[in-house]
């Protein structure tokens, strides 16, 4: 195990003065022939799971295999919104734990993930959405989560650029206000977990594609990768948009369809928007990064695909909707658009837990909202591997719920995913 010097302001200064190089954030390794656990997918879920396996349970003979570079999937393409004001009891409890983990993640990982709790505001443009906001607020309050319905005057105070005037089509009638919500630097989360996991002995294999899973009498015995075979008894599928393809390698079928989700940023301007703003009716949300760019997101594309190309319609619709909310930003310019893949489940809830194949676990179904769940999912999945059974927080999200018919009810409130 390599020891790494800690990052701090002091170290920045001494390195700056001595101009000595920083040590590597993670090393490259040969592929070992055996690992206790093979995690497929080097996104936030795979890397967090690896980190918590090593840190909380001392399981360090772990490989993360990633077909491209780490964070190349959804984890490097998302809009990085973190919140816990979910609609269901199971959902809000689970995400609340993640927010708590995010709050201390920088010091846990000794890597500043730049979690900015600027508050998260979901606008209501009709009395029916106001009712849904109240529903969420009431459920959240009963879980001890800071969440409340606020008035247009309070909205104007928090976000002066919003048009709260008597606006005919999408009047702003109120909002669900969630102060602990915010944004995080997605790459930093990925790198922070990777660096901390690597320091504990985890092998991170980039440019290493999983091409097969060896199953004997319903038990995992190993995997095949583009760089050779690995024997292992435990495989965790953390591949989000590709997860049904990986599951199929083990003969497991998942109720998942993959759809593109698009996002875009503008050129930077001086900061004017503090909270994260979401409008379900307008299918859009926006935040301003500390660099000054507005980051926009929307709903998933209405078709299934593995292509990550953006469409023109996404940008024209998005701009129209954005100007409904903030008419003053018409002369800001859209700089870049992109798309990522989302693994959508029928009930907009994740699938976490064991499968019919012994040793093959899934942590998938993260759809449009899974970045914020990285820490709690990693922690819970690691505990499940160590304890041999899913804990309370993830119990409701097992694959068997689709056989039992106990779906989670986020669909009602997760219309614009993020």
């Amino acid at each position: 195990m390599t020891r790494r010097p800690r990052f701090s302001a002091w170290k920045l200064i001494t390195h700056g003065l001595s101009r000595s190089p920083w040590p590597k954030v993670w090393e490259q390794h040969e592929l070992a022939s055996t690992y206790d656990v093979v995690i497929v997918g080097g996104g936030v879920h795979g890397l967090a799971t690896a980190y918590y396996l090593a840190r909380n349970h001392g399981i360090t003979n772990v490989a993360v295999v990633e077909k491209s570079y780490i964070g190349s999937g959804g984890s490097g393409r998302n809009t990085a919104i973190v919140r816990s004001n979910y609609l269901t009891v199971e959902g809000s409890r689970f995400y609340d734990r993640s927010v708590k983990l995010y709050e201390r993640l920088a010091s846990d990982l000794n890597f500043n993930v730049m979690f900015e709790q600027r508050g998260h505001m979901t606008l209501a443009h009709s009395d029916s959405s106001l009712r849904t906001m109240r529903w969420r607020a009431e459920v959240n309050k009963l879980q001890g989560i800071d969440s409340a319905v606020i008035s247009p005057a309070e909205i104007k105070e928090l976000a002066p650029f919003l048009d709260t005037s008597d606006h005919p089509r999408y009047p702003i009638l109120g909002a669900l206000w969630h102060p602990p919500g915010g944004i995080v630097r997605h790459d930093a989360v990925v790198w922070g977990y990777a660096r901390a996991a690597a320091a504990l002995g985890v092998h991170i294999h980039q440019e290493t594609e999983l091409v097969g899973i060896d199953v004997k009498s319903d038990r995992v015995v190993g995997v095949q990768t583009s760089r050779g075979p690995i024997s292992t008894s435990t495989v965790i599928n953390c591949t989000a948009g590709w997860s049904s393809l990986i599951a199929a390698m083990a003969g497991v079928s998942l109720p998942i369809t993959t759809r593109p989700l698009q996002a875009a940023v503008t050129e930077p301007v001086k900061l004017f928007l503090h909270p994260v703003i979401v409008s379900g009716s307008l299918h859009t949300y926006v935040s301003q990064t500390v660099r000054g760019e507005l980051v926009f997101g929307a709903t998933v594309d209405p078709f299934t695909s593995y292509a990550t190309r953006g469409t023109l319609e996404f940008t024209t619709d998005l701009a129209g909707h954005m100007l409904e909310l903030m008419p003053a930003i018409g002369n800001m310019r859209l700089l870049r658009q992109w798309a990522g893949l989302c693994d959508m489940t029928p009930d907009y809830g994740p699938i976490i837990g064991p499968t019919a194949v012994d040793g093959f676990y899934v942590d998938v179904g993260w759809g449009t909202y899974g970045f914020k769940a990285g820490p709690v999912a990693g922690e819970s999945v690691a505990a499940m591997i160590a304890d041999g059974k899913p804990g309370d927080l993830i119990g409701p999200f097992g694959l068997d719920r689709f056989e039992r018919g106990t779906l989670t009810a986020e669909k009602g409130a997760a219309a614009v995913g993020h």
Partner: protein
Amino acid sequence: MSRYRLDPQPGEVIDRSKTVSFTWNGRRYEGFEGDTIASALAANGVRVLSRSFKYHRRRGLLTATYHDPNAMVQVGDEPNVRAAHQVLNEGMEVSAQNVWPSLSLDLKAVNQLVSPFLSPGFYYKTFMAPRALWPWYQRVLGRFAAGGVVNPEHHSAEYDHRYAHPDVLVAGGGPAGMAAAIAAAESGASVILVEEEPALGGHLRFGDDGDLQALANLRAAIEAQTAIEVMTDAVVAGRYDHNWVSVVQRDMAHVEERLVLARAKHLIVAAGTLERPYVFKGNDLPGVMLSTAARRLTNLYAVKPGDKAVVLTANQSGDAAVADLERAGVEIAAVLDARNGETVVEASGRKGVQTVVDSSGKRTDADLLVTAIGWTTSTALLNMAGDRPVYESRAARFLSSSLPLNVLATGGLVGDGTTDQLIEHGSAVGRAAARRAKTVKATWQGATSHAAPGEIPTLDVDDHPELFRSTTHGFVDYSEDVTSKDLLAAAEEGYDSIELAKRYTTAGMGPIQGKVEAVNALAVHGEAIGASLLETSTTTWRPPYAPIRLGTLAGRNREPLRHSPIQPWHERHNAKPLVAGQWIRPDHYGDPEAEVRAVRSGVGIIDVSPLGKIDLRGTDVPRLLEFVYVNKWSKLQVGKVRYGVMCAEDGVIMDDGVTGRLGHDRYMMSTTSGGAGGVWNWLDDWLQTSFPEWDVKMTAVTDGYASINVAGPNSRELVGRLTEIDLDADRFGYMEVRTGTVAGVTDCFLWRIGFTGELSYEIHVPAGYGLWLWENLIEFGDDLGVTAFGVEAQRIMRLEKGHFIVGQDTDGLTQGFGVGIDWAIKMDKPDFAGKPELAWQKERGGYPRLVAVQTDDPTVVPPEASQIIDASEKIKGRITSSRHSPTLERSICLAQVEEGLAQGGQRLNIRLPDGTTVAATVMADQAHFDPEGTRLRV
């Protein structure tokens, strides 16, 4: 005239007879018409246009194009204006962005002193402790955000969209693009030719006399061609599937900008090359500029870019710059020929270049350093078309490699040549494109024929030395202040792929999107990891090619607003508007409870025009109804209507409404107002994918009819005064429909139904007569006390009756058996949408139920969404609807509760949003009022 303005130049684009005045940082300046902001400033001797993002270093013109990373300024309300592209207008207020307190004295420049500590990603390594200070750190970091300022009072100007269907669209109006457009038009194609600069010509515009002559000829040929539409100061921003091309037209007379959405049968990319900066110490000092920038300034704007110059040249462009500068009276202190291995290692100076150090160690005093070290191919549109350009080391740039059949490239994307060779290539490409466009039947199918062998000549490439970085470190990304050292350090730290290194250092993330720096970044990173990345990678570009204003993307008329034809009456009568999806409806006219009492005791009318209406005809309509609704339809007689509920395939309730049989093969389906579009899609989807052989014709007629519900004990009397249709209770019973004439209007249909729980007739009249009928009802009902009522009164009445509203009393998981309509769900039907899931729901049990609830304290109305909790505060259900009932004079609710709590008489606790709790009881019947429905059947 300023000493920097030259005598008239042969290719100049300024009009010296017209001066334009403007301000720069509050000071008044003058330029000429045709000047850009940057050229006018340069003519006035202003060299510093901006401060850099991180270190706040002084920056001056680099590329002198739209894509100049150093020339972003604030113009009035508008941030991030490209000063080297934006043409000067009278009275413009221009200022530097992101400087404090001013451009000349910017205190944030102290960052330069601490730059060793601001290594790439420094913020990831600090600001972590103590945690309590993190919000403060965030504010500090936020102060350093880049760019200009947005004015909250800014009102968007007018923007426009236009759709176009050219045979051939040419992106790029240099010689190759112009020739391609001419040849395509001559071959019979309709052509749109798009050029980013304010005039056609590309590099010919600032070329020598021969270039200007060639340009004049090309322009004349284009003007002679009526089939070519030229768009200048316009940019092809994106190419999407099937040649769906977006063009931003900036130079518009009546609107700010226009987005052209073009479906081109064939696309020709002639976007040429961008000149690449060289990386060396001091390469960002004001006065260091590219050869094309120096030539633009002298030849287009007649501005002398400096007094004494050093020129580093590796190609004809650098050589030509030497000649141009000499002509302009710039003293050429040194020419360094990179083809002979000479190079620059450092430029230094306080506010701009003062000294240049070359590779022999020689120091030369100069205030201008011009570099011409190579080209970056403008491959963005090719990428968007699926091309993976490959690096050609001989030419030291990427070239197009493989394109789909509906895209061709010409000019610098393909190779080099004399103007004549470029024109010859462009012409051949234009002809081939026109020929291919003719083979296109439908644009989504694309062209079918390849170019014939030899149809397009090959363009060779000129040999060019590979030059990216000198022996010293300098800026790779000017917008983001990323140096070559930063890229090397990132690789050393373990960010070992170009993707990780770019993300870590933020190279390529700025407003120039890597156009200027991407290739240098690849080269430097390759150097760091000891592999030539240029050989193995390609550069990928995502749309848009150039940033687009949000206003332009949005266009005008962004969101339709729908009103019923009766809206003028509602407005005259002070209706309070309610937003219901796209519709604006009257919520009430002052006192909704009074409206309820008027309906229950006499008669009222409500405008229900937004109700979805789908006209269904054909012999197989009953099969369709049988399939999409959970209840039975096969025996519906002519003249009858029936209520139906639709479930999605997961058994979740998606819509409800009544459908009537108006004639033998003619049905009218109604849907909820919000569900109309979704139901239409749903039916169409089944008909197209599963039952294409069925004889069903659907027409959406929501807007075709205005709909008015006449409700209350006196409704028969009122409607009877306006129609000959026999309304007798025995001959026109509950849940029946009739067609006929009402208030003199033919082609009406009316059905007798009762959402409000009263005797009522819903009259559907051709929309143009909606207001007429409404006013007739008001007039003829005057003595009956007819009252207009709004959505609120209707909601109260339906709640009194216990009717649920889909989406309010149901949610994304409410399946059919959860809402008390078990009687309607016919599991003995062979099949219907959602049946397997509903069968499973029933078998499984344990699902929430919709029940009527009344609070013990009749004055407390629990707000909708109040939670029903048990003693340990566990959630057991929620209030879905609640109102004060004027009829019962008490509070009434509908609620979803856990199965075990659904029995009549069950006691509940409701947690109100204010934190208090009220006790309540589940009612035996879902209807609070008239559960037997006697009032409906009179």
